[in-house]
C-alpha cells in the first residue's frame, strides 16, 4: 500500500506524462530480489530507523521464504511450507514495506542521483529513489543431450522443490549430478525417503573447494557407509528418454555415462553450482566480474546502487585477508551480514562487515559447520572422535588458525568461530588432542 506522502514525492514519474491514475508511486527504496538478503535489508533498515517507503520485489509467486530447508526438511515433508515464510503479512504492513510478488524486472532506467524506474516483463513500472540489487544466483545448467527431458530437475527455489516433491512418489531411482552441498543434501534426503540414489561427481572429490581434502574424504566414507552410491571423476554423456508412447513431453529414463554405463533414473537432479544474476547490473553499466562488484560498504560502481548477497563480489571481509582480495560468498550468513552493511550504507553510516563467514550443511545425520574461509592454509590439524562420530579439521596459515570444518562437533565450531571473531588463536599442537576442549586452549593472538 502506498502512502499519500510517497505519492506526493513522485514528481519525476508525473513529469513523464503518465496520467495520475496509472502513475505508480515512487518508493524510497526498491529492493529487487525478495530472498534472504533482500528481506534482511528491509528488516535491518527498519531497525536502523530508515523511514522511507520500501518496496521488496521478487519474481516468484511466493511470499519470501527460507531456502536451506528446500533440500532437506521441506523435501522430506518434515516442515510445512508456512514455517519457511520469513515474516507475517502483518509485519510487512506494520513496517511500511510493500511486498511485490511475481514481477520480473527486465530493464532499469537510472539517473545519476540514484533514482530511476524499473520495468517488469508484465509492463509494470516501479519508480524509486534508491535501488538495491539482491538478485541472487541461478542454477548452472548442464547442457547435454536430453537436458530438456521431463524429470531432469534443478533445486534452487520453492517451485523447483515442489516439482521435485511431486515426482518423488513415482520414482524408484534417482541420479544426482554434482557432489556439492545441494547435491549431497538432496541425495541424503531422497535416500532417506527410500529412493535408490546415485551421486555423480565430475571432480576427483566431493564438495569442491568449499572444504579441505580431509573433510571431503570424511564425507565420502560417511555417505558410502550409509549406502549412498557415490561415483567420483565421472560425467554424464546424455540423458535417455523413455519410449512410452503418447506422452506430451518425453520423460527421462536413465543417464548414460562417458564410459557407456547406463544408470536407470526417473528423476535426475542437477546441482553443479550457480551463476550470479548480473544481467540487470550489466544493463545499468555497473562493473561486473563474477558478480556485481561492490566496495566495503556494499555500493556498486555507480556509487549509489547497493548489491548484496550471492550476486555481489565484495572485498574479502575476513580480518587479515590480503589487500585487494575479492570474494563472492554464497551463504545465508553472508546474505544477512552483507545486508546489514548495506543498511548502514543506505542510512549514511559507514560500517564494515562484522563477523566471520560461516556455513552449514546437514546431510543425513551429519551436521557440517564451517567457520571462516580455508583458502591459503599451510597446515591442517585433525580432531577425530570415532566413538562419538565427531570430526573436525582446523586450518592454519603461518601458525594462526583461519578456519575449521566441523562435523557433529558444535563445540569445536563455536570455539573456532569465536576465536576468529576475537582475533585469537588456537595453537595447533594442543588442538590435535580431540579430548581437549578448544575453548580451554584458545590464546590471545
Amino acid at each position, binding site marked *: 500500500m502506498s502512502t499519500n506522502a510517497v505519492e506526493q514525492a513522485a514528481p519525476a514519474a508525473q513529469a513523464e506524462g503518465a496520467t495520475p491514475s496509472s502513475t505508480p508511486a515512487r518508493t524510497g527504496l526498491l529492493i529487487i530480489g525478495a530472498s534472504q538478503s533482500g528481506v534482511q535489508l528491509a*528488516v535491518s533498515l527498519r531497525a536502523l530507523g530508515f523511514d522511507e517507503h520500501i518496496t521488496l520485489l521478487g519474481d516468484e509467486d511466493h511470499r519470501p521464504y*527460507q531456502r536451506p530447508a528446500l533440500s*532437506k526438511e521441506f523435501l522430506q515433508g518434515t516442515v510445512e511450507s508456512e514455517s519457511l515464510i520469513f515474516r507475517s503479512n502483518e509485519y510487512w504492513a506494520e*513496517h511500511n514495506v510493500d511486498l511485490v510478488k511475481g514481477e520480473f524486472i527486465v530493464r532499469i532506467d537510472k539517473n545519476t542521483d540514484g533514482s530511476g524506474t524499473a520495468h517488469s516483463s508484465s509492463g509494470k513500472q516501479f519508480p524509486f529513489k534508491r535501488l538495491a540489487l539482491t538478485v541472487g544466483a541461478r542454477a548452472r545448467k548442464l547442457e547435454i543431450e536430453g537436458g530438456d527431458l521431463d524429470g531432469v530437475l534443478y533445486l534452487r527455489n520453492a517451485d523447483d522443490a515442489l516439482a521435485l516433491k511431486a515426482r518423488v512418489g513415482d520414482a524408484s531411482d534417482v541420479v544426482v549430478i554434482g557432489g556439492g552441498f545441494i547435491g549431497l543434501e538432496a541425495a541424503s534426503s531422497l535416500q532417506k525417503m527410500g529412493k535408490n540414489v546415485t551421486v555423480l561427481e565430475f571432480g576427483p572429490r566431493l564438495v569442491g573447494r568449499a572444504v579441505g581434502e580431509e573433510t571431503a574424504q570424511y564425507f565420502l566414507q560417511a555417505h558410502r557407509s550409509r549406502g549412498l552410491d557415490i561415483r567420483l571423476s565421472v560425467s554424464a554423456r546424455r540423458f535417455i528418454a523413455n519410449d512410452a508412447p503418447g506422452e506430451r513431453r518425453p520423460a527421462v529414463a536413465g543417464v548414460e555415462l562417458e564410459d557407456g554405463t547406463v544408470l536407470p533414473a526417473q528423476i535426475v537432479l542437477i546441482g553443479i553450482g550457480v551463476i550470479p544474476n548480473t544481467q540487470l547490473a550489466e544493463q545499468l553499466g555497473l562493473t561486473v566480474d563474477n558478480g556485481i562488484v561492490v566496495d566495503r560498504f556494499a555500493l556498486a560502481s555507480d556509487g549509489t546502487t547497493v548489491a548484496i548477497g550471492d550476486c555481489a563480489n565484495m572485498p574479502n571481509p575476513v580480518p587479515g585477508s590480503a589487500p585487494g582480495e575479492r570474494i563472492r560468498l554464497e551463504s545465508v550468513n553472508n546474505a544477512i551480514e552483507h545486508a546489514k552493511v548495506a543498511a548502514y550504507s543506505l542510512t549514511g553510516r559507514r560500517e564494515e562487515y562484522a563477523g566471520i563467514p560461516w556455513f*552449514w550443511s546437514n546431510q543425513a545425520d551429519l*551436521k557440517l*559447520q564451517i567457520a571462516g574461509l580455508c583458502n591459503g592454509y599451510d597446515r591442517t590439524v585433525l580432531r577425530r572422535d570415532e566413538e562419538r562420530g565427531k570430526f573436525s579439521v582446523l586450518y592454519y596459515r603461518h601458525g594462526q588458525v583461519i578456519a575449521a570444518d566441523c562435523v557433529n562437533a*558444535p*563445540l569445536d565450531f563455536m570455539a573456532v568461530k569465536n576465536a576468529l571473531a576475537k582475533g585469537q588463536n588456537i595453537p595447533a599442537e594442543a588442538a590435535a588432542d580431540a579430548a581437549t576442549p578448544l575453548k580451554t586452549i584458545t590464546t590471545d593472538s
Partner: protein
Amino acid sequence: MPTVHFTDAEGAVRDVQGNTGDSVMETAVRNGVPGIVAECGGSLSCATCHVFVREDCLAQLPPMEDMEDEMLYGTAVDREDNSRLSCQLRLTDELELFVTTPETQV
C-alpha cells in the same frame, strides 16, 4: 491459542500469539521480535535464537537433546541453567511461555 511473552534485555515485554506446532523461534521471527536472530532457520546450527526461560515454565518444555546442549555453549551471551534454543521449543495448545531474550545473539 498458545502465547509467548518475550521480555527483552531492557525489560520491554512483547506478547505474541502463536500457532500450535510452530517453534518459539518461528513465532518470534515471523512477528519480528528483535531479540531473536535465528540465522539457520531452526536447523540447530547457529545458536542465535537463545532464550532464558522463566523457571516455572521449564517443566512444560521438551527435554534438551545433546546437540542443543552443545550449541548452547556457543551463544553470544553465556548460557544459564534456564537457557534454551527457541528453535527447539514447540508450541502446544494451551502453552503460556515466558522467556527473556539476551542482550545480543551474535
